[in-house]
């Protein structure tokens, strides 16, 4: 909340006519902003002209701007593959599941943490949930393989010692949407819940005390005070997340599914497809073309959602 108001203040600066005076007046704040500005300038704005590489036949010697212009040829392979729809659908659906379930679960966990009375237990469980976030995706892939593989996997070990039939997930495309979402939630929930937990901590204690005096029970407190106070945070985080809805989580998918083509139907996302298609001939231009495609769609989605949010509740929109 506080951050947001700061941001608004900085936006106001721009609006006022005497910009440089204000810049001097808020020099400390501006100075604190400089690293972020430099970072985004260097890594987000400077490379922008490089987008042009998506429209040329890139030649190392001639450089990006000296190479031959080929128009939309680099985009053709995506369209010709006939998979564009499946890929985009998979990518978006997985990301929606990750975003929606991820945020719901994170809010839920944050509220649970907040309601815990034992400080010791609260810290321990928070740490435990946070840990998976730090495990590399490669290790997660190995872990999952060792849990689920048919010959020596842990799950199948348990199943067969119970006399049950073995399960072969690596040959069954239908179980992966569920498995991948579970793995994602296991990894990310601890981290995501921290943001919400902090937001809950920031809720005015007087409101909560007042509700207690009025005789609200724990559920009523959550329903009428905590959740409404979290709403702006949820909306902003959702908006940010939606911008990346077309950008797949390559690490997660590639390390777990790998190149098992049996499972592609339900697990192939834009990133993994492009990785396979362009790794064989090392084509910078087609790779950039795909990146541009994703960025454009992401941009459209953010603008649309932001527009809708603005219509409904102008305070919550990003810009």
């Amino acid at each position: 909340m506080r951050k947001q108001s700061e941001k608004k203040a900085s936006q106001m600066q721009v609006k006022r006519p005497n910009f440089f005076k204000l810049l001097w007046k808020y020099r400390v704040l501006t100075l604190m902003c400089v690293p972020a500005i430099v970072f985004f300038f260097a890594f987000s704005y400077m490379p922008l002209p490089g987008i042009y590489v998506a429209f040329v036949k890139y030649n190392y010697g001639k450089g990006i701007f000296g190479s031959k212009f080929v128009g939309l040829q680099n985009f053709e392979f995506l369209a010709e593959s006939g998979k564009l729809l499946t890929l985009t659908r998979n990518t978006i659906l997985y990301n929606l599941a990750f975003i929606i379930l991820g945020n719901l679960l994170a809010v839920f966990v944050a509220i649970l943490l907040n309601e815990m009375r034992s400080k010791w237990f609260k810290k321990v469980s928070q740490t435990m949930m946070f840990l998976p976030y730090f495990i590399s995706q490669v290790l997660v892939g190995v872990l999952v393989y060792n849990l689920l593989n048919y010959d020596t996997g842990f799950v199948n070990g348990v199943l067969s010692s119970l006399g049950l039939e073995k399960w072969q997930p690596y040959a069954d495309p239908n179980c992966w949407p569920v498995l991948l979402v579970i793995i994602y939630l296991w990894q990310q929930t601890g981290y995501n819940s921290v943001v919400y937990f902090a937001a809950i901590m920031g809720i005015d204690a007087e409101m909560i005390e007042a509700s207690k005096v009025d005789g609200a029970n724990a559920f009523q407190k959550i329903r009428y005070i905590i959740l409404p106070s979290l709403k702006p945070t949820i909306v902003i985080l959702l908006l940010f997340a939606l911008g990346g809805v077309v950008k797949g989580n390559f690490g997660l998918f590639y390390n777990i599914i790998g190149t098992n083509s049996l499972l592609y139907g339900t697990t192939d996302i834009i990133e993994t497809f492009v990785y396979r298609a362009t790794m064989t001939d090392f084509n910078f231009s087609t790779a950039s073309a795909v990146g541009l495609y994703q960025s454009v769609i992401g941009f459209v989605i953010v603008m649309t959602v932001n527009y809708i949010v603005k219509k409904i509740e102008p305070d919550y929109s990003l810009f």
Partner: protein
Amino acid sequence: MKKKLLAMLLATSMVAGVTACGSADAPASGGSDTDKKTESAASSDSSSSESSDSAAVDTSEHVVITYMVTGDKPDGEKAARLDEMMTELNKILTEKVNAELEIYYIGWTDYLSNYNLTLAQMDGSVDLIGTASDWLDAWPNAKNGAFLPLSEDMLKTYAPMTWASVTPDHWELCKYNGDIYLMPEDNYAQWTNHGFIYRLDWAKAAGLANGCHSWEDLTTYFKYVKETYPDIIPWDSDGTNYAQTAGGWVSSHSKFVAFDGICSGAIWGGTSDDLYTVVTPAYTDTEMMVEYAKMMKEWDQIGVWKTDVLNNTASSNRDDYRIGRVAAEQHHTQTWTDLCSATPSNTIYQDDPNAESGFFYFGEETDNVVALSITHGAMAVSAASKNPERALMVYDLIRNDEQCYDLFNYGIKGVSYEINDEGLRVNPEGYNPDTDNINGMTNYWWGRNDDLEIRDASRNWKAIDELYAKYDKIKIDYPYGQFVPDVDDIQGKIQNVNEVYTNYTKQISYGKYNGSAEDIVAEMQQALKQAGIEEVTAALQAQIDALYK
């Protein structure tokens, strides 16, 4: 105001971006200009040294030539051994051409991407580049401008021994658009046709008195191994051998000769009796592919590989073969020459005196064996190299000078190797294969020279010579050495075809498909058609016609 400001910001960022890119570009293009100049005035001096003496080769400035090679950088004691050798070698190189050599390693993890990325940098950090037309993207890189075109004058002046040793026909095969880009490894007997390496002693026990000579024999063999040695996984494949196995099936059942370097699936090619008609057996020969799918399903059911083979990334099949934990390895003849010999690391031969390794090569049934393209290993010079002349001089020595060759390939005599009475290479006393094997560190696969090679005494030369003689009788030379397909317009389709082919072959080659063999093959063919295989075939046919007809 806000808009104005935004516009200003954007404009600044654009300008800054453009200038940044521009300035990064300038030296690169400038560099290639100088290269061109050098090339045109090749017999004269290197333009950078600015010496007025134009006749002799100017080596007054001491330079460091960096040789880029695929392989993992040695560390610890290994690196110390390598340094010792390099010091010796650099003494000679300094004396002869006033240059020294450094090795720049491209580690095996993701080697192809790192290789191409390093070339794409074009910052002059590498000079000599070990490359290959079939497995290291030599032609695409030449096309992309990463390699320096080597003029005849330049080669004659700076690499005279190499120039003389390679025949005009062979130089012809190293040209793209009329310029020579590669110096080929054309005087080195090696066979990299793939096949299955298996335990000959076990095959005999399985009732195959002569060993395995067909795919059906392999089925018998695998069945026997599975029954007799239940603890052994017959072939612990990591799920990446699908293209080789499928290609092997095709060469064993047809006269197909694949084009190198179009895509990893090697789907396009000709046939040995009709070389210049482009065919795609995997797409057109339904019956053959159905047979293949059926047999691989059978292998899967026998348990030749692990059930989750497609996700099995943690296999070390070749090392397991050496110690007898698996019963087969699928790779090429060159690997077999190692695995069939009683070297210290192949402990199967110490544990079991009867142990023998046979080789079933793909195409054995139809005598369909194609000799290696001479650009399977080749040296190129980076277009960004600051000292291309000296790089050539260094290469010329390493390739043709006995002293340099032995040092670079075998190490220091008495430390890394010794020569026995028969003139064969043996390990000296106290030799440690983990640290003293220079050959496994310099990875010089871009100009080995049979005139200077010293045979390794530990190799099973009897079996090897026998097989090589057989190959020599039936082989045909790689017929498409000069065919550098122009794929710009069909790149997208090739990518898609390759992707489709890879996905289906993976399932078929490991018997992991659902439904019947007929269904999966039909499904694959349908998908290939959709991806544009017929258009690509037609385009390639047109290019072949233009070149050969």
